């Protein structure tokens, strides 16, 4: 499903060339559950952004569902993000002036889905994530766990094939974090590909496939025994 070959990403910082990713080769299948771990600055977030089409590689080819997506223009990449990729962030990134329901509705609004259909999907998602009574609350009226549940509901509203989570439990206490992880893992069971970036080994070790990154390279891969 996701195929990265010889991906390199370097930035110009001042007069210095900084290489965030060096010659990454990676294949991830549909329904995989992958965690990417490593110290900060190891390039794991850059890799996630690249997979999420928010960033472009300096060189190399990225194929998503068999098609080369590195050559797509902005509008085409936006369409791919809209249809195939969901994001969950450490700091939730909810729009503060919109209600929980409106936040969940946002990707569908941008995609131009009919209001009738949107309402149905939002109601179902609110229900699935136990947010039905919080539908009209704004983010500042929600607890951290509730906020991340809204974010997950939003990420799945377009039924994406790939879910990218960048430190999804980073701003949550342990028990709430566990709860959020359970919700994400339920999605894997529904054949969603989950890619998780974390520096927390406890969280990272829950994934079936674990990647270790150091200095822009994947240094080791391991699979969890069932």
């Amino acid at each position: 499903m996701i195929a990265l070959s010889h991906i390199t990403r370097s930035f110009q910082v001042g007069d210095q060339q900084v290489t965030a990713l060096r010659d990454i080769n990676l294949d991830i299948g549909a329904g995989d559950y992958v965690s990417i771990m490593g110290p900060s600055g190891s390039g794991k977030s850059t890799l996630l952004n690249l997979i999420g089409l928010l960033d472009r590689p300096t060189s190399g080819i990225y194929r998503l569902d068999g098609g080369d997506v590195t050559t797509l223009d902005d509008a085409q990449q936006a369409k791919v993000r809209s249809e195939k990729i969901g994001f969950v962030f450490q700091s939730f990134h909810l729009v503060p002036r919109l209600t929980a329901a409106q936040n969940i509705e946002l990707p569908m609004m941008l995609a131009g889905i009919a209001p009738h259909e949107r309402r149905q999907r939002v109601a179902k998602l609110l229900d699935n994530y136990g947010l039905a009574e919080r539908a009209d609350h704004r983010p500042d009226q929600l607890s951290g766990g509730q906020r991340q549940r809204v974010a997950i509901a939003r990420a799945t509203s377009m039924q994406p094939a790939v879910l990218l989570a960048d430190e999804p439990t980073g701003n949550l206490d342990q028990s709430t974090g566990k709860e959020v992880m359970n919700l994400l893992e339920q999605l894997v069971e529904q054949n969603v590909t989950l890619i998780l970036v974390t520096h927390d080994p406890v969280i990272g070790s829950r994934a079936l496939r674990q990647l270790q990154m150091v200095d822009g390279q994947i240094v080791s891969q391991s699979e969890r025994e069932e």
Partner: protein
Amino acid sequence: MQFADLIRLTTSSFLAYRMRSFLTGLGIAIGITAVILLTSIGEGLHQFVLAEFSQFGTNIITVQPGKTQTQGGSVGIFGSVRALTLEDADALRQLPYVEAINPAVMGNAELRANGKTRRTTVFGEGHDFASTFTMKVQSGSFWNDDDNEQARAQVVLGAKVRQELFGGQNPLGEYLRIGGQRYRVIGVMEPKGQILGLDMDDAVFIPAARAMELFNRSGLMEIHVSYRAGTDAATVARIVTERLKDRHGREDFSLVSQEQALEVLGSVLDVITFAVGALGGISLLVGGVGILTIMTMAVTERTAEIGLLRALGAREGQVLVLFLGEAILLSALGGAVGLALGAGIAQGLHWLMPSLPVHTPWIFALLAELSAVVIGLIAGVAPARRAARLDPVTALHTE
């Protein structure tokens, strides 16, 4: 993205920063108020002046003796000017399109009646005078026909002259001396007031032939040609010119068309209205700068949100439209408030000072609202473009 959603999203940010939105919109509102108020007064003045000039009817061409042009060489035989005569006036009466002809002479003479004397303006006119100039006779009437050889000594009084000389008494049938000659009063005009400094009520009207004799003139001062409404003034002017050239052998007279004069006057007044509108436009420009400032701030404050929208699948164009939409919403709402304020103040002024003419044409209102929207659009373009071009990754990690 659907239009309704665009409205919902832009409205939500508008409402989230109520005070700020209100103040920014106020900038535009004040600008539009100024534009509407000034153009309303300008347009009111326009209509007032035109009404003042056109109250004698607009389908009138005035013929005056003498050609208003500079000629080379000595005046000689070509320079001599033949007077416009009553016969010229009669000749014009038969032309097509012509509804009425009014020969005119004006002067000053002493009136005497009831033992009182009064110096006043004496108008020598034709029998169609009142209908030509849309003036109303209050009682009695003008003479029935013009007799060039033996015009009868009849007079129509202006309202003021009647009051001064006859008081409450009915003047019809009474006699009046004008420059020593006896005239019979056959009509009284309705009060008309002053027109361009000339008091039409402090005047009397006698047949033109009589007035020429009274003032010892060999020619008329003017001939007024009243033509059928809807006829092209230039066509009538051409026919009149041809007829008089035939009679005089050359063009020793000038034509002034009321319609042309009004057109020139109207365009001058339009320039004035436009100029005062442009003055108001300056404050509108300041309002536009306010929008630019607020939108630039909004983009900076909401950088992370822009990154999020991009991650959720928004195209650059959608981000652009969202921020442009906000700028336009601000200016359109401000503009609408300004419209209401401007028109309201204009009407209030008119109510307080009825002599101040005020008029707000809907096309001005429409143009003002449109310019508010355009200003919002222009002010919003730069910030919205900056928002659209933000790098999604950098934007997402901006706190």
